[in-house]
C-alpha cells in the first residue's frame, strides 16, 4: 500500500503503524472519508505481542536493543530493562564495571542521540525525563537491594549517573528562561537520593558517600547555589517530619 492509499483509506484497517516521530505524534489518523484509525509504532506492536504472549519480555528487550543498534530515535528505556542489563555486567579487579555489549550499545546510542542535537522540541523533554526517571529508580533499587554487594551497587550507579542521566544543560537546551530554570531543575534532580534507600547502616553510609561525591560533588565548586537550594527545600520538610514523628509515640517513652 502506498502512502497516498494509506492516507485515503486508513479507516479500513484496524491500526496504522508508522515509525516516524513527526507522523505518529497524534494518537489517531483520519482519512479522506473522516474515518479515524488508531496510530501506532513498532514499539506499540511489540508491546501488544508481549501482552498476548506471542513473544517474551526478554524477546522484547532484545528487539529494543536491535532498534538502538540501528539508531532509531527515542527508543524508550525503563528501569527493569536497565537493571537487567546492569546485573549482567561484572566488575573488574579495580571494581570498575565491565561494559557488556548491551550496555555499550546503550551508552553509544544515548550519547549519539544527544550529540547530534535532534532532541530539540518540548516533546523530547518527555523522553529525556523518562531516561532520568529510569536511572533514578534503578539507582534506588541498587542501593536498597541487599543482594547487590556495595561495590557493585556503587559501580553500577556510577555507570547510570554517567551515561543514562541526561545533563541538565542538554535537557533544557531549548527551553525558554533556561538560565533561571537550570539551577532549579538541577536542585530538584540532585535531591533524588538524599535519603537512604536501605535499612542497613553500612549500605546507608555507602549510599550517602556515593551521593555526596558523585551527585552533589559534581556541582562543586561553581554551583554551590544549587546545594544551598536543596538544603533550603529539605529543611522545612525535615522539621515537619520530625514533628509528626515526635507526635506519634508517647512523649515520655523516649524522653
Amino acid at each position, binding site marked *: 500500500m502506498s502512502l497516498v492509499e494509506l492516507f485515503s483509506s486508513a479507516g479500513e484497517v484496524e491500526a496504522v503503524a508508522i515509525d516516524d516521530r513527526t507522523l505518529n505524534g497524534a494518537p489517531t489518523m483520519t482519512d479522506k472519508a473522516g474515518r479515524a484509525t488508531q496510530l501506532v509504532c513498532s514499539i506499540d506492536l511489540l508491546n501488544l505481542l508481549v501482552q498476548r504472549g506471542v513473544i517474551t519480555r526478554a524477546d522484547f528487550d532484545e528487539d529494543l536493543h536491535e532498534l538502538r543498534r540501528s539508531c532509531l530515535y527515542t527508543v524508550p528505556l525503563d528501569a527493569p530493562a536497565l537493571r537487567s542489563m546492569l546485573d549482567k555486567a561484572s566488575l573488574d579487579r579495580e571494581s570498575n564495571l565491565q561494559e557488556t555489549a548491551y550496555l555499550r550499545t546503550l551508552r553509544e546510542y544515548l550519547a549519539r542521540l544527544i550529540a547530534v542535537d535532534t532532541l530539540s522540541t518540548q516533546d523530547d523533554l518527555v523522553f529525556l525525563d523518562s531516561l532520568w526517571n529510569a536511572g533514578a529508580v534503578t539507582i534506588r533499587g541498587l542501593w536498597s537491594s541487599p543482594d547487590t554487594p556495595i561495590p557493585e551497587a556503587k559501580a553500577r550507579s556510577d555507570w547510570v549517573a554517567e551515561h543514562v542521566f541526561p545533563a541538565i544543560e542538554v535537557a533544557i537546551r531549548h527551553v525558554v528562561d533556561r538560565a533561571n530554570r537550570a539551577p532549579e531543575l538541577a536542585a530538584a534532580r540532585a535531591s533524588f537520593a538524599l535519603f537512604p534507600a536501605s535499612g542497613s547502616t553500612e549500605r546507608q553510609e555507602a549510599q550517602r558517600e556515593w551521593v555526596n561525591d558523585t551527585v552533589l560533588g559534581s556541582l562543586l565548586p561553581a554551583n554551590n547555589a544549587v546545594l544551598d537550594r*536543596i538544603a533550603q527545600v529539605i529543611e522545612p520538610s525535615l522539621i515537619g517530619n520530625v514533628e509528626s514523628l515526635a507526635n506519634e509515640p508517647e512523649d515520655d517513652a523516649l524522653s
Partner: protein
Amino acid sequence: MNLKTMLYREMLKLPPKHVSERLLRSEATLSAAGLLGNRFGARTLLLYSTLARTLATAPDETEVAILPEDEKPAAWHITRTPQGVRLRAEGSEETSVFHELNLLDLDPERRTSCFEQIAAQALPMLPSEAQWRARVLSGPLSPFQLHELIGHLRQVADERLRALAVGVNRKEQVGVKDFIPTGKLYYETLAGPIRPELNGSEYFEQVLCPRIRQVFAKDRAWGWRCAEAAFIGPSVDLHEVFREVPDEDLLPVLKLGEELGSSLAPVAVLTVALPRSQKSPAFLELARRAALQTVARAKKAPSDLGRASLFPAFSLLTLRCLSAEEETWSAPPYWRRLAGMMHAHVLMGMLSFEGVDIRAFGQWVSSAHTGVGEVADYLDAQQEPMHVPDLEHMRSPDFIALGLMLAVCEKSEQGESVLPESERAALKAHFNGLALVRLSSALPDALQGSPRLADQPSATQMEASLGDELVNYMIDGRGERAAWHSLFVFARHMAYTPSLTEKMREWTRGIPGRHPQDLSASLELLAFAARIASVQGDTGLAEAIADTAISISSDCRTAPLASAVWGVLALSAAAHQDRQAWSNWLEEKMTILAYTLARGEACAELARLIDLMHRLTSISERAWSRPRYVAMSAQS
C-alpha cells in the same frame, strides 16, 4: 534531651555531607536540634548562651552558679574578672580563665580591651578585624557571633601553621589536606581579603602593600615574613613599603635563611637593604650576602637543590587546591596565585623536612592533586592571561630571582658595590647557555603582571634579538623548547610584530614535522604556543595551533596525550578575549577533537576533562555538552 531533639539529630545524619553541612548553618536547624550534640559543635553554642544569660546579672569578682536550662543542680560556677571569665566545676578547686568570654560582657570597656588583646595576638591579622571591632563596640556578641569569631581565630595563619606543622611532624603518613588548609580565611590572613573588583596591580598597591605595613607595625617578624612571602618582584615595591621604617627597626628582622622559603626571598632582602647600604655598612653586608645567595642558588645543579625544589611544587599544589575549593575558586586568579606562593613560602619556613627524601617527596607533591584544580588553571588563561606564575620549570624561581637581582643591581647606584659590573658580566657569561636566565633578567616579576613594554625603546631591541635567537634555535633543531618558553615569557611584556606573528604560525604548523616520533614533545611545544596566543590575544595563531593539534590527535591513544591535546585547545581558546566567542570557539574545536581523537582511553579522558570543566562553570552557562557526548560515545 527531648524526643524532637533526638529525632532531629538522627535525621540530620541522613543527608549527605554537602547538604547536612548547609543545614547546620541555619539557625532554624540549630534551634530544632536543641543546640545540642558534640557532633555539630552545638554544645559550645549552648554553653555560650547559658553563660551570656548568667553574665548579664553576675556581679564583678563574685562567684555565681551557671543557671542551667533544666531544673538540675548547677554544674559550673563563674566569676567575672577584667582578665576574663573564670570557670570552676562543681566540687572542684581548679579554675580556668577564658578571656574571650569577656566579649559576652555587658561592660563596653571590658569587651573592647578583651577584643584588642585578641586582635593583637592574631598574627598576621584577624580576618575582617574592623567589622569585628564595630560589632564588639555595638554590644555584647551573641553566642553565634562568638562561635563564629572563635572559628575565625582558628584560621589565623600563625595558629593554623603551628597546628599544621605539629600535625605533619607527628604523622607518618600525610595527605594533601595536611599541608594545604581549606577555606578562604587562612589565605586572607596571609594575602589580604579577596577583592574581585580590583585588578592585580591595583590589589598589590591598594591592599597588599598597606597590609604588609600594618602587620609590620603589629609584629615585626610576621611583617617581614609576609613581605618576603608576597615579594614577586617590582610589582610589590618593598622599598616603598618600608620607606618610613627606621634602620634600627628593620635591620634585626631581615634574615637570610639558606634554604627557607622561596628563591625570591634573598632578592626581597636585597631590594630593601640596597637603598640603605650607602649609609649603613650593616645593610651593605646584608645586600652582598643576599646577592651571593641568589647566585649560589641559581648555580646549584638540579640534584643539589634540596628543599628549595619543593617551592614551585607546593605553590602549584596550593593554587590548584584553591581553584577547586568552594570558597576560593571564584577569587581572581592573581589572588589565588599570590596566596599559593605565599603559603608555599611560609610552609617551607615552618617545616623541617628532617629525614625526608626530598626528591621522592617532591614527586609526590607534584602529582598529588589532579582534576578540577588543573582544569581551572587552563580556564584562568581566558580570564587573566597576564598573571600566570612562571613555574613551568623547577628552576624558574631561581632564574627569575637571579634576573631580578641583576636588574635591581643595575638600576641602583649602590649596585656596583654589591655586585661589580665585571661580576655581573661574568654571571651573564656563565649562564649564557640558558636562554631563560638571559631573558629573565629583563622581567618585572614572578607573576608577570606588569603592563607591556611595547612602547619602550627596549622592546624593539628585545624583539630583534629574540627573533635572531629563535631562528638559530630553529635552524639547528636544538633548544626549541627554550625558544618557545622565551617567546612565551616575552609575550607578556610586548606585543609581537605582524612579521614575528606570521613566523610563529609557520613554526607552529611545522612542529609535528620536526618531532615526528614524539607526540608529547610536539604537544608540549604547542602548549607554549597556545599560551603565547592567549597572552597576545592572537586568534590567527590560536587557529593554526588548533589545526595542528587536531591533525595529530588521531594518533593520541592514551589519556595523558588526550589531556595534552585538550590543554592545547583550552589554552588557545583564551586568545578570544570575549567570553561568548571563547566559549563558541572552544565548543567547536572540542567537538572536532571528539570526532578525531582515537577511540577508547583517549576519548574517555576527553569526556572526563569536559566534565571537570562543567564543575567550574555555572550550570546555566555550560556549553560543552555536545563534545562530551561525542567523546562518551567513543570511549571503548
